């Protein structure tokens, strides 16, 4: 009889830090210690705290081990699982700021305390490759209820009343979208799950697909019933191999149980689902381009209208919803619209998942109720910037979003507030920048991404973003002029007004928001020819202070291009600016602070 569960994270983050070997070791040692019949080892989805991975949780003791390496496993098995002594130094812990005491209770750990998990409710709790575990967590009950005791219109009314809005970024009310499609004539309709997550730094959709694929299948089946569709597609990028594999396993198991296919729950409703793979083009997250890609055409957007709800895939009415939106659907049907709309702010209901990354201590996935402030996410959940560096900005919404500064940190997060502050919700990437990040360089990075990803169909996006990038590059090289700033700004507005699809219309946002809040950094690059953060290489110079130099020769050994010369113990070392590639190795190596970067 099973008396304990060992849950090993098998999400992408932990897998890349050897969690698969950790799992194998648990299986091996549990067998070796004769505990095979009493302890169950389970692979789960993402726990969210990717920074501390690989994570292993032991239930019912509710102990979370972090940074578990295969060589730690025998100890956990022999100490904790056999003898009941927790291996405390591997336990996830926080320090109580007032008393300095160690906090081990997972519900009191800062990272989890402020979170409310609806979309991520099963991630890190169930085995995503076993549909029974999803069913144990009340899985497919919402679908059964909808099919057997609700009309399609009633389902739409519940979703409308819940206030759920699209989590892909734009925030269109989900129920309204479904209603448009339902009201279209004809009986051939389609539903699509947009799993083409492409923002740099965003990985919440991947984690949901990997950790709880059945939630998406159930959400899509409910959506299909509501709008009158019988075929669905999940459009996922081939770059997400674990997600694709688990989706296919889940679809297979659902079909076996009759939860997909003909006459589901004996209600006469048929629904089938297929995973379609994309090649990972950013523009294919745009719905008309995504539809083109599903149809086997080149992924390029079309002018709207007609909207997909009128004419979508194969020219038929189609609803497209994002992964996270769909992960909320079954919960709303199960717990009611009132429950859902009691969470969040006036205009934005429910929770939002953010992928925290960049210069932050607790990199990972967090799900918070709408209305939480950026400060709470970054400082209380995220733990602030590492190494005591000063916070500079937070970038939300990926290449379509913008940067927000210290002054906006107390903004409660919802769709409207973020737009008013000059950024956007986006799909939920949240990248924290500290004093070592150059904002001009950040804008240049996003523009470079956009130039790569622009499909080239419309001129404003194809040519306009390229011109923007050229100007930004010049500024980072110290070749910019003040007139360029005005030219850039004007070009940004022109692109916004004239580009064909969402990609182009939002592409100038990183430039506009950095120009607005960090104009001084642009001016420093142009007028003083300096990069205040010390990032733009062309504006840097390295030298050695002969007074401080101990003539130890360490810098010369570290220099990869032989640009540093001197006589050990006799003459101070000197950097040849002609040869120097400004890599910073000497600065990192010198223990006496003799290397100066200007």
């Amino acid at each position, binding site marked *: 009889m099973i008396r304990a569960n060992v849950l090993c994270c098998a999400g992408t983050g932990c897998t890349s830090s050897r969690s698969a070997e950790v799992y194998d070791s648990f299986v091996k040692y549990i067998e070796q210690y004769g505990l095979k019949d009493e302890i169950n080892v389970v692979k789960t989805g993402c726990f969210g705290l990717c920074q501390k991975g690989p994570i292993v949780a032991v239930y*019912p003791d509710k102990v979370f081990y972090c940074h578990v390496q295969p060589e730690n496993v025998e100890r956990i098995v022999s100490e904790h699982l056999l003898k009941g002594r927790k291996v405390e130094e591997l336990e996830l812990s926080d320090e109580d700021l007032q008393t300095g005491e160690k906090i081990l209770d997972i519900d009191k750990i800062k990272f989890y305390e402020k979170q409310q998990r609806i979309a991520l409710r099963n991630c890190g709790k169930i085995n995503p490759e076993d549909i029974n575990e999803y069913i144990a967590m009340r899985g*497919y009950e919402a679908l059964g209820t909808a099919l057997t005791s609700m009309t399609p219109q009633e389902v739409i009314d519940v979703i409308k009343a819940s206030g759920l809005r699209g989590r892909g970024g734009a925030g269109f009310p989900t129920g309204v979208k479904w209603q448009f499609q339902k009201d279209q004539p004809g009986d051939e309709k389609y539903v699509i799950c947009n799993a083409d997550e492409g923002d740099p730094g965003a990985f919440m959709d991947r984690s949901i697909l990997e950790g709880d694929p059945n939630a998406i299948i159930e959400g899509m089946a409910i959506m299909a019933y509501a709008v009158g569709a019988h075929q669905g597609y999940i459009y996922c990028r081939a770059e997400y191999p674990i997600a694709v594999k688990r989706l296919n396993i889940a679809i297979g198991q659902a079909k076996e149980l009759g939860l997909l296919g003909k006459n589901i729950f004996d209600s006469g409703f048929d629904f089938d689902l297929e995973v379609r793979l994309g090649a990972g083009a950013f523009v294919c997250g745009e719905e008309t381009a995504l539809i083109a890609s599903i149809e086997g055409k080149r992924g390029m957007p079309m002018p709207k209208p007609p909207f997909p709800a009128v004419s979508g895939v194969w020219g038929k009415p189609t609803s497209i919803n994002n992964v996270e939106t769909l992960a909320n659907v079954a919960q709303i049907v199960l717990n009611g619209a009132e429950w859902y709309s009691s969470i969040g702010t006036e205009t934005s209901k429910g929770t939002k998942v953010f992928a925290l990354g960049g210069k932050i201590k607790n990199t990972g996935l967090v799900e918070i109720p709408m209305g939480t402030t950026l400060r709470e996410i970054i400082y209380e959940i995220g733990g602030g910037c590492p190494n005591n560096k000063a916070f500079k900005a937070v970038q939300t919404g990926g290449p379509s979003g913008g940067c927000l500064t210290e002054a906006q940190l107390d903004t409660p997060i919802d769709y409207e507030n973020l737009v008013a502050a000059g950024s956007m919700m986006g799909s939920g990437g949240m990248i924290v920048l500290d004093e070592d990040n150059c904002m001009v360089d950040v804008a240049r990075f996003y523009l470079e991404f956009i130039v790569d990803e622009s499909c080239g169909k419309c001129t404003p996006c194809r040519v306009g973003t390229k011109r923007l990038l050229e100007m930004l590059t010049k500024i980072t090289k110290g070749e910019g002029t003040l007139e360029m700033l005005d030219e850039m700004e004007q070009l940004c507005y022109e692109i916004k007004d004239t580009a064909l699809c969402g990609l182009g219309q939002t592409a100038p946002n990183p430039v506009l928001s950095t120009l607005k809040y960090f104009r001084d950094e642009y001016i420093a690059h142009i007028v003083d020819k300096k990069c205040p953060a010390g990032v733009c290489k062309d504006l840097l110079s390295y030298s050695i202070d002969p007074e401080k130099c101990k003539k130890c020769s360490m810098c010369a050994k570290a220099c990869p291009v032989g640009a540093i010369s001197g006589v050990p113990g006799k003459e101070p070392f000197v950097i040849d600016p002609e040869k120097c590639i400004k890599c910073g190795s000497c600065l990192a190596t010198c223990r006496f602070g003799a290397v100066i970067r200007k």
Partner: protein
Amino acid sequence: MKSLEDLKKMRELALKKVEMREGGKDYRVVVGMATCGIAAGARPVLNKLVEETAEKDYNCVVTQTGCIGMCVYEPIVEVYGKDGSHTTYVHVDADKAVKILEEHVGKGKVVEEYTVDSVRAREV
């Protein structure tokens, strides 16, 4: 699967596998499983507790802990109630374990004769 009823049946079967991850039981039954406990016979006690709990569906989780310092009284079983109550049973064997589950977890009655206080009182 053709009805909500079928789904419910499946769910009940599946629930056994995952319910310990949810917590929320009325009692936590803890067995001391350090070297002293194991030497004194805590393993058969733990096995019995786990078996009985599964079989009779007692409202508790069975888990283990290390040495609590009274090695001479091992095997020790502690029962923690949701209300904050805490009872320590000593010199437990498989039969006593069954009785503890039956009386304490099942009916909410502490088995006085096995508690540390009464055992020590008898020794004096």
